């Protein structure tokens, strides 16, 4: 940004660069508005960073993180030794890809639908109904799903038996869960994420749409040629953010719905749930941190690569 400053002194051909503090003063209002975010990230993201060290020590409560014995990569061994590193990482990433792609597509779709609705009352009601599941905790979602699907007294099975059909036992069938979990996730999240897109649609200049209408564009053409292109930057940026967490699983969702049902692990075990189960017995901060570090590093790597690719294609859309 600094490069674009035009100094009033037109006589001097060399633009005098302002130093950091002068710039800070110049943009003091903006800086001030940034402070809460800066403080937040400083406290919760930068200050704890030296704590990463805990992943390389045998943590002793009394000696503290930096006083504990250094053990090198021993804390990482457990994940590698489990022989499940690949399948866990794969499950985690595949679920997240499904969540990110389907989640965003559905959110954009819903936002456009909401935008096209004429009746204000219906629009508001629909939006509220969609938003509500977002506020239900994962614990409750787990209970709801169990009551819906369980073999003996579940809602679905009660209907099936009443219709004279055979019972369905999803809690013993690992293959149905990828679909079920994605559906549950979408049900919970779509309302929330569509708000973001709805807001950017609202931000589109009304004149463009007006002009298109004058030119005779129908509703579909309006969506295809105006709304979607205008949403592209938002989609790309949200996508980039989401990719950073692609190796981090949604623990709450998986743990509360699948619990410790080992019959379903083949398709539902993600890094978080595995680590939780395996380390709960010896309560090892260091192993847990080692896993967190592993996830963060992969996430960081993916964000850098994708950002690099985006920058090559469309520099304006990249994060940095």
């Amino acid at each position, binding site marked *: 940004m600094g490069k674009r400053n035009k100094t009033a002194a037109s006589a001097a051909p060399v633009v005098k660069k302002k130093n950091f503090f002068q710039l800070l003063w110049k943009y003091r209002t903006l800086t001030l*508005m940034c*402070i*809460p975010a800066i*403080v*937040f990230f400083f*406290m*919760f993201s930068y200050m*704890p960073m030296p*704590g990463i060290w805990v992943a390389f020590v*045998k*943590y*002793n*409560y*009394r*000696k*503290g*993180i930096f*006083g504990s014995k250094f*053990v090198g990569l*021993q804390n990482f*061994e*457990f994940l590698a*030794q*489990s*022989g499940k590193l690949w399948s866990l990482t794969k499950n985690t990433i595949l679920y997240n890809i499904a969540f990110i792609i389907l989640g965003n597509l559905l959110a954009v779709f819903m936002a456009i639908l909401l935008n096209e609705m004429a009746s204000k009352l219906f629009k508001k009601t629909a939006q509220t109904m969609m938003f509500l599941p977002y506020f239900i905790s994962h614990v409750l979602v787990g209970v709801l799903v*169990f009551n819906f699907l*369980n*073999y*003996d007294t579940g809602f679905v099975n009660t209907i099936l038996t009443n219709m004279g059909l055979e019972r369905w*036992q999803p*809690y*013993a069938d690992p293959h149905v869960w990828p679909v079920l979990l994605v559906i549950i996730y979408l049900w919970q999240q779509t309302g929330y994420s569509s708000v973001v897109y709805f807001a950017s649609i609202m931000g589109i200049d009304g004149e463009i749409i007006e002009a298109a209408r004058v030119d005779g564009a129908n509703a579909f053409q309006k969506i295809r040629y105006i709304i979607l292109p205008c949403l592209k930057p938002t989609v790309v940026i949200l996508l980039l953010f989401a990719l950073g967490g692609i190796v981090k699983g949604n623990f709450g969702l998986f743990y509360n719905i*699948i*619990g*410790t*049902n*080992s*019959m379903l*692990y083949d398709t539902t075990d993600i890094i978080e749930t*595995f680590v939780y*189960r*395996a*380390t*709960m*017995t*010896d*309560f*090892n*901060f260091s*192993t847990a941190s080692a896993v967190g570090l592993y996830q963060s590093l992969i996430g960081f790597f993916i964000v850098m690569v994708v950002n690099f690719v985006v920058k090559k294609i469309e520099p304006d859309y990249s994060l940095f």
Partner: protein
Amino acid sequence: MKKKLFAVLLAASMVLGLTACGAKDAPASKTETKTETTTEQSSASEEEAPAIDTSEHVKITYMFTGSKPEGAAMDRFMEMNDKLNEILTEKCNAELEFYWIGWTDYLSVYNMTIAAMDGSIDLIGTASDWLDAWPNAKNGAFLELSEDMLKTYAPQTWASVPAENWELCKYDGEIYLIPEDNYAQWTNHGFIYRADWAEKAGLANGVHSWEDMTKYFEYTTANADALGIKQAWDSDGTQNTQLASGWVASHTNFVPIDGICSSALWGGTKDDLYTVVTPAYTDTDMMVEYAKMMKSWNDMGVWKKDVLNNTTSTNRDDFRVGLVAADQHHTQTWTDLCSPTPSNKIYQDDPNAKAGFFYFGEETKNVVALSITHGAMAISAASKNPERALMVYDLLRNDEACYRLINYGIEGVSYEIDENGYRKNPEGYNPDTDNVGGATSWWWGRNDNLELRSADRAWDQIEALYDEYDKIKINYPYGQFIPNCDTIQGKIDNCNEQFGNYMKQISFGLYTGTAEDIVAEMQAALKAAGIEDVTAELQAQIDALYK
């Protein structure tokens, strides 16, 4: 408006930041404990006159697993607490505060609370077999209790625990735990069943083997409506490894080593205690037979089809009112369920009702007496008043008035003593609010010298079983073995995890394919997880200690 919002957000983030810092303040608490240990040492070094300074009134927090009473029950509880505090204030100028760790995910919450090390807890109820006493001690969470300290601040306890028992509470030469070693109880597991129904099932002598149990379940599942039960055994998914251990105990002379991981994978055998084995891994025929029997139980419908996701079971309470036919737990639980207490309504509804107990290991006479650290008290290393905490513990364990208050509540309200010296419920006793002793979980310092036997327990049945145990029991042989797992912890975790995963499927008969296949699959998974390396390492450590 916007500015205000920002101000609020800013303030909120600052507050959050502050609390986050507070919780992480490990170095600060570290120095605190250091100064404390030095003061202890200095006070201990003045051996002749251990002047105990109790001028400052302090609050001692006792942390333990249990359900926190609510509403009227809490009021009753506080009445007891106030009375207790009066005595404690008088005798050592301290008061006791209770800190409950609820049963949901108790182990992780428990460990997390200990790990905070912020000085908010003093006394910690712990156990070497079911509450991670040794891992916590090794991680530096518990205070080393020097002999001088114990002699000075807990003299009655020090005198009553024999030297060989103190030995079992040491790690690296330091005492970390105070054992509950003067309390007779049996916590070996087994099936609690209805003896009157077993008779109808053709088992006139009761259930004495897993095959009998199958017969019993065949009868109860087939006659569920006639018996008025909703489920033969409304198990939840967490019982899998316990069930497997039971099967192993009943079919081998395996003696598991406590405290390595949650499933009792490693141990010795009665004939050869110091050779480490894992029958659940090596004895294929036995495990295949197990898998087959459990599959037949599942097919019978002993438990719910979605048992692994069944987290809301109230099986024990259902047993009390006759809604289920069996429960799986330890002898101590059976002593309650077999007695005509007010909550056990089956005995009021049906004069023929009788609860029998089939203990795991009955067929092979394989019963190990309880380790004395199945219940033990530790002092938090972050405690600001460890000396006073010891004094309070000494009173709670040895002082009759304190002991009765914490174990039974207020006399005349929660209990009274009958002419034979037994404890019974007073007139107008309400089990929902007046059972104060049930809310204190004082399982780390019970003392048979002060115990009041409950009048409504079926002592003749209980003593008959205890006598049977006494004839066949062996003492827990590995009391001094606290394995150093640093190098193999990852493998232990992985073995435990794999074993647990397969046991969930095998113990509830939920596997697909044949029993042979699933057992072979489990063995392959355990091998891949490094079970043989762990066995070798444990063997080396056992050899170093015992040979």
